[in-house]
């Protein structure tokens, strides 16, 4: 709320400068966001922009803020408004008021002011409104707004002559009932909207906006002033659904003092007589079907001390709470009984009062103490693994990306992720843009977008990884979220130092990175590399699935050339792992083997095979049919060329032999090796390359 400093000073005595006052307010929970020097009526003034918390509707007025300043600083309030008119309320009014929905409108007060002349407002009034960001209309409407700014009570003026029934009825609307508000827009109402009616005819959306037919105009001579208390939630629902937010609805949503309706009418009547020559009727129509009895709140000294963590003297507590307008209605040895003022609907519980005491005492008064912890914190395995994998990948030259989880429908179709069955993207109902319309099914969608940006910058090589969530909808239930670890490698590796021949990223490089992750998680034995279940966005001949027990846990591969073309990107490599599942299977505990007592002997063999032959077949076969003395087998070279002929390749394997009770002799090893080579020749129909 923007408020004039000079106006505030009409209600509270303070010799603080505007910035000092702003600082003090900020430190007491009424944050002043800016102090701007302005000028009012030739005198220097300042506009304070106060961020009033949503639970403090009572501070959305000059008087409310002045009251708060007095409580915070201990200053005196300068003057009170004329008290609610006991005298006048007894006299009869020309208008009758009937409230059909007392829960939504606990109080409706109305006053008729006659013989007005509609004119431009005096300069001072116009300036006050404009300082607070309200446009001046005419003297009548301006008075209602000025009183709202001053007291916090929204008022509405109806042109009395446009009312035919002269009977105000407060009821809810019929479904789909049309109504034209004074901004000229006709809106369709719902059964929950509260209406002010002239007999049968709706004339205002309660607490939100008046109707155009009964609006004050140049021809207006008499007005009916409305000053009511509406249910905050009802006003909010209507204003929100219709997207119709006004100064009035803003205040009603945040609670307006039900005791202040008549006082505000009288203040308005006085101002109208001053600036528009009007005469108020002696009688105020004040219909009040719902009056809540004041609530007694108990505040225990012990509770205050234990929650604050510091002792606050009873005397001080009483002084602070009284300054806020609370009435002490009972004192006992360990507790106080209090009643909150009618404008503080946020004070209903002991905790609310404890907050007020600590707030006014000042948070700085409470010492800072470290608690003695009884809690025993558990290690977080996932975090530990994440950190280890992250540092592994950084060491491999991959840079960590963090992308927004939003992507477009198009990108989600291209990169369907690791979901089983048909992927069902989660759409955002109110997205920021079409580029952000859905949650990503795969981390590869944003990573490809990252590559796009770097290719545009002519980067020679890019290697990124991301650890993050992907999302998919599961038959209308809550979407499923899965932690993925994905990466993208393109072009040259980033080499520092003298130029050396370093080949660009290849499938085997990326597979190597993934193998290292599997090794770290001790999953290399459990996961098989398969050529099945290859996604269509991958090159069918340069991609693999990672499978564990029939379940696909990841993929590695080169992007399909057509997909690369489609994305207008050069070819690149990707991997995506179901990190969540992998961490479930990851093993941290293991035992080491004791060291072998006798040396191993190694023999190589090169086999000439068809080009389509899979190197791993032999490794698997040797392991499965393990002969005594064979310790391990691995493939270490692949060769294609003239020496082996068209359509063929040569694969070189290294086999290590070892006995655990003696050093093997050459003759012994040769014999076993020969037997092995012979069985390979027979089983796989291959020949040995000489």
């Amino acid at each position, binding site marked *: 709320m923007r408020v004039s400093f000079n106006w505030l000073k009409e209600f509270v005595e303070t010799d603080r400068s505007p910035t000092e006052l702003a600082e003090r307010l*900020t430190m*007491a*929970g009424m*944050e002043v966001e800016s102090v701007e020097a302005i000028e009012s009526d030739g005198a220097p003034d300042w506009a304070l922009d106060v961020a009033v*918390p*949503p*639970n403090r509707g009572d501070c959305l007025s000059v008087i409310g803020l002045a009251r708060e300043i007095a409580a915070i600083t201990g200053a005196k309030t300068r003057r009170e408004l004329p008290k609610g008119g006991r005298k006048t309320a007894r006299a009869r009014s020309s208008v009758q008021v009937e409230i059909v929905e007392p829960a939504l409108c606990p109080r409706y007060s109305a006053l008729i002011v006659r013989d007005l002349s509609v004119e431009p407002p005096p300069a001072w009034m116009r300036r006050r409104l404009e300082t607070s960001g309200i446009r001046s209309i005419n003297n009548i409407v301006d008075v209602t707004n000025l009183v709202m700014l001053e007291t916090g009570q929204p008022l509405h003026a109806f042109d009395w002559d446009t009312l035919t029934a002269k009977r105000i009825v407060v009821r809810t609307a019929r479904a789909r009932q049309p109504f034209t508000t004074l901004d000229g827009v006709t809106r369709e109402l719902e059964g929950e909207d509260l209406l002010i009616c002239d007999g049968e005819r709706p004339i205002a959306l309660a607490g939100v906006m008046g109707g155009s037919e009964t609006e004050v105009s140049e021809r207006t001579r008499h007005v009916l002033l409305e000053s009511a208390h509406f249910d905050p939630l009802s006003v909010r629902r209507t204003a*929100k659904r219709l997207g119709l937010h006004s100064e009035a609805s803003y205040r009603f949503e*945040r609670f307006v003092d039900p005791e202040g309706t008549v006082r505000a009418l009288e203040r308005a009547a006085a101002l109208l007589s001053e600036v528009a020559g009007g005469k108020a009727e002696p009688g105020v129509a004040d219909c009040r079907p719902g009056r809540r009895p004041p609530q007694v709140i108990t505040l225990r000294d012990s509770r205050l001390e234990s*929650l604050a*963590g*510091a002792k606050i003297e009873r005397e001080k507590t009483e002084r602070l709470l009284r300054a806020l307008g609370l009435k002490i209605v009972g004192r006992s040895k360990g507790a106080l009984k209090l009643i909150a003022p009618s404008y503080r609907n946020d004070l209903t519980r002991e*905790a*609310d009062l*404890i*907050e007020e005491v*600590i*707030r006014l005492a000042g*948070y*700085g008064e*409470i*010492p800072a*103490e*470290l*608690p003695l*912890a009884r*809690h025993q*914190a*558990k290690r*977080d395995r996932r*975090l530990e693994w994440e950190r280890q994998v*992250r540092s592994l990948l*950084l*060491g491999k*030259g991959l*840079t*960590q990306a*963090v*992308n*927004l*989880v*939003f992507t477009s429908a198009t990108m989600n179709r291209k990169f369907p992720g690791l979901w089983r069955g048909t992927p069902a993207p*989660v*759409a*955002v*109902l*109110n997205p*920021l843009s079409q580029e952000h319309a859905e949650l990503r099914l795969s981390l590869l969608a944003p990573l490809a977008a*990252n590559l796009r*940006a770097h290719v545009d910058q002519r980067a020679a090589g890019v290697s990124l990884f991301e650890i993050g969530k992907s*999302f998919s909808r599961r038959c209308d239930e*809550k*979407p499923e*979220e899965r932690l993925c670890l994905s990466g993208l490698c393109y072009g040259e*590796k*980033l*080499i*520092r*130092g*003298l130029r050396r021949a370093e080949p660009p990223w290849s499938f085997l490089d990326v597979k190597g990175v993934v193998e290292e992750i599997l090794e770290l998680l001790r999953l290399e034995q459990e996961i098989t590399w398969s050529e099945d279940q290859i996604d269509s966005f991958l090159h069918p001949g340069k991609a693999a699935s990672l499978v564990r027990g029939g379940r696909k846990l990841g993929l590695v591969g080169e992007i399909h050339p057509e997909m690369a073309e489609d994305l207008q990107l050069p070819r690149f490599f990707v991997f995506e792992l179901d990190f969540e599942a992998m961490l479930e299977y990851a093993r941290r505990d293991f035992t080491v083997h004791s060291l072998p007592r006798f040396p191993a002997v190694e023999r190589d063999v090169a086999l000439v095979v068809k080009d389509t032959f899979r190197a791993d077949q032999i490794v698997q076969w040797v392991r499965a049919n393990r002969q005594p003395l064979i310790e391990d087998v691995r493939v270490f070279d692949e060769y294609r060329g003239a020496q082996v002929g068209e359509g063929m390749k040569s694969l070189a394997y290294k086999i290590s032999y070892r006995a655990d009770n003696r050093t093997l002799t050459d003759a012994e090893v040769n014999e076993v090796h020969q037997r092995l080579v012979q069985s390979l020749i027979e089983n796989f129909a291959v020949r040995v390359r000489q």
Partner: protein
Amino acid sequence: MKESLEGLGEEVRGRIRSARSEAELQQIRVEYLGRKGRLTLLLRGLRDVPPGDRPQLGERLNRLRQDIEEQIELELKRQKEREKERILREERIDITLPGSRLERGHPHPIALVMDEIIDIFWGMGFEVARGPDVEDDYHNFEALNFPKDHPARDMQDTLFVSDGLLLRTHTSPVQIRVMETRQPPLQVIAPGAVYRHDDDVTHSPMFHQVEGFMVDRHISFAHLKGVLTHFLRQIFSADTGVRFRPSFFPFTEPSAEVDIQCVLCGGRGATGDDKPCRVCKASGWLEILGAGMIDPEVFRYVGYDPEAVSGFAFGMGVERIAMLKFGIQDIRLFFQNDMRFLRQFR
């Protein structure tokens, strides 16, 4: 004879000195001391010398022989040294050339700051908890005491995925999820991504928060101040000024906004040239944390007795801390993943 002996000595020494290689020195040794060497022959010739002169001449010859041996050995050693030095000299390289390496990848600044935050709280006994990014209205709002149709909901502009399901607007729902399933004492932090319908230089539709809370018997506002002051002085610097001021959050009461002294101007509100500080907008302070004592209503939602336990909760924006620590001015840089930006982090 005497003269010729001296002449011989001079001659040998001269040749040793000018010898260029080990082979040459061996050659000299053979030439003078070998079986047919000149000195050997002279020694053999002692037989022909009158017996009276023999001892004296023999001694001189032997001394000369010994002298030559030593000279050769010495020169051999010198030459070996010189040879070693020569090899080392030849092997010398230009150490000012850059080291060869594959460039290491770069960690993301959000991960770096997140790690720091987690580790500081870990040190105070907090453990990590997580929750779903797609939340229901109950955990994101209702159980945190944001009633339906309450203006407090305006504080957070929400992205929805269906009626009743939304992208969490803060990490606070993890608080509810943990308390629903566990009993005090609890000390938990919940790091994660959060979402708002917002996009500009200082707001991103996705950003990261770390939520934390502690619940036990007799947890007080003083403890909240103690824990957060310690945290802020660890993550910024030991002499960082910290202040707590009242604020409003539906799920805490009392609520506090925690400020630190500006990291740029040190709390002066102005920079060296007396211009208003742009980081703190001349106020000298920066909002860094929201916190408060957990509202009794929240305890009721999770079935705790607010008379038996109390607790505090806090939340902070990771990007905000990263921006202050690294002097980053545009939040969108975090999510563009531009190598020129990321390369600066190690």
